[in-house]
C-alpha cells in the first residue's frame, strides 16, 4: 500500500487530529518521505469532499471548506460562538509566533492573557506543551478547521501579516 493511502486510512479511521511524529514513527519513514506522501494525498483529494488540515505538529482529515454550508444544514442548530477581540488577538500572536509562552503573549498584548488562553484551550483551538517550568502554546487543526483553511499559510493576508511582523527587529517583535 502506498504511504499516502495508509496515512489517509489512519486519519479516516481515527477521525481526529493525529501527531505527525507518531505517524512517522508508526510507518518508520523519513520526514521527506512523509511530507511527500502528504503532498500526494492533498493532490489526490483535491476534487473530493475531504481535505488534509495540517499544523506544525498535527494532521487531520476534514470536509472541504466549500461544503461548510451543506454540512451545517445537516447539523442541529449549534452555536458556533464568537472568539471575541481578545481571543482573536491571542490567536493571531500564537499563529505567528508558535510555540510561544504565556509571558511573551502577555508582553505583546500588554495585558494578562491567562483567562483568554484557558478559554482557547477549553475550546481546543490551541494546545500547550509543558517546557521546563512553563507552557508553550500552539495552534491546533481544530483552529484551522474553524478558519476554513488546511494550513495557516492559506489564511487570507497571512503572508502580508508575516512580512509586517518580520520587519520589526527580533527584540521588539
Amino acid at each position, binding site marked *: 500500500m502506498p504511504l499516502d493511502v495508509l496515512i489517509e486510512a489512519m486519519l479516516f479511521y481515527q477521525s481526529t487530529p493525529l501527531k505527525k511524529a507518531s505517524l512517522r514513527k508508526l510507518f518508520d519513514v523519513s520526514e521527506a518521505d512523509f511530507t511527500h506522501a502528504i503532498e500526494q494525498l492533498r493532490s489526490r483529494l483535491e476534487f473530493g469532499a475531504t481535505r488534509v488540515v495540517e499544523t506544525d505538529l498535527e494532521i487531520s482529515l476534514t470536509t472541504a471548506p466549500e461544503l*461548510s454550508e451543506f454540512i451545517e444544514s445537516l447539523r442541529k442548530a449549534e452555536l458556533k460562538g464568537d472568539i471575541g477581540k*481578545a*481571543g482573536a488577538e491571542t490567536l*493571531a500572536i500564537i*499563529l*505567528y509566533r508558535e510555540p510561544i509562552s504565556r509571558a511573551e503573549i502577555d508582553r505583546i498584548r500588554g495585558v494578562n492573557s491567562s483567562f483568554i488562553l484557558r478559554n482557547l484551550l477549553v475550546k481546543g483551538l490551541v494546545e500547550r506543551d509543558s517546557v521546563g517550568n512553563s507552557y508553550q502554546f500552539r495552534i491546533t487543526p481544530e483552529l484551522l478547521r474553524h478558519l*476554513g483553511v488546511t494550513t495557516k499559510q492559506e*489564511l487570507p*493576508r497571512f503572508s502580508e501579516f508575516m512580512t509586517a511582523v518580520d520587519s520589526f527587529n527580533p527584540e521588539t517583535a
Partner: protein
Amino acid sequence: MFVTSTVSPFSIKTEYFEGPLELLIELVEKRKLLINNISLAEVTDEYIAKVSEMQEQSLPNTAQFITLAATLLLIKSKSLLPVLELSDEEETTIHDLEDRLRLYQIYRDFAQSLQAEFGSCMMYEPVYTPPREPLFLPDSLCTIPTLVEGMERIITNLPKPNVRQVATVKQAISLEEMMDSLRQRIERQIKTSFFKMKAEEPERKNVIVGFLAILELFKQGNLIITQITRFEDIQIEADRAATPRYY
C-alpha cells in the same frame, strides 16, 4: 466579553477595553493619526479620562492601564515642556512604547480578519460514533486511589481567582498617586503654583485636570518660561499683563 457578567447590572456600560494598548491604538486611530510622540501626546488626556472612569468602575487590569498612563504623561509633559529632563530609561520606555504599539497594531489588524473568518467556512471532522460491540477494558489506572489522585490534580489546577485579585491590588497604584508623583517631579524642576492650586482644589481629579491644563498653556504659549542660568530655577509667567503672575 466576560466582564459584562461580573460588573453589576447597575453600573454604566461603557465600551470595554481589555488591555491598555487596545485602548491607546483605538484613540490614535479614531483621530486617523500615525503612531509617534505627537499623536501619543495628543491622546493622553482622553486616555487618562478613560482610565479614571475605569478606576471608578473597578474594572480589571486597571494597574496595567495606569502604568501606560505614566509613560503617556511623560511623553506629553516632554512635548509641552521640552526643558523636562528624562532619564535614559524613560527615553527607552517611550521609544519601546511606540514600537510595541506598532507591533500590536499589526497583530490586532490580523486578529480582526481572523475574527471575521472564524466559523464562516467550517471544515468538519466526521461525527464520532462509538463502537457497537460492548467492550470492557479497565487498566491499572482504574482504581479508586488513582482516581482520587486525579481529582486532586484537577483541583490543584483550577484557576484561583481570589489569589490573583489580591496580588493585583497590592501592586496597583491609583491614577491620582501616579499623577501626583509626576507633578512633584516637575515641580522640582520648575516652579509653578501647583501647590497653591492643589490647596484650593479639594477634588483630586480636578488637580489632574488642572495639571494637564497648565501643560496645555505652555503649548499655547500663554505662559513664558525663563531660565536665567543653567541649573537654576525656571520661572514661569503668564504671557499677558492682566493675568496674575505665577511667581
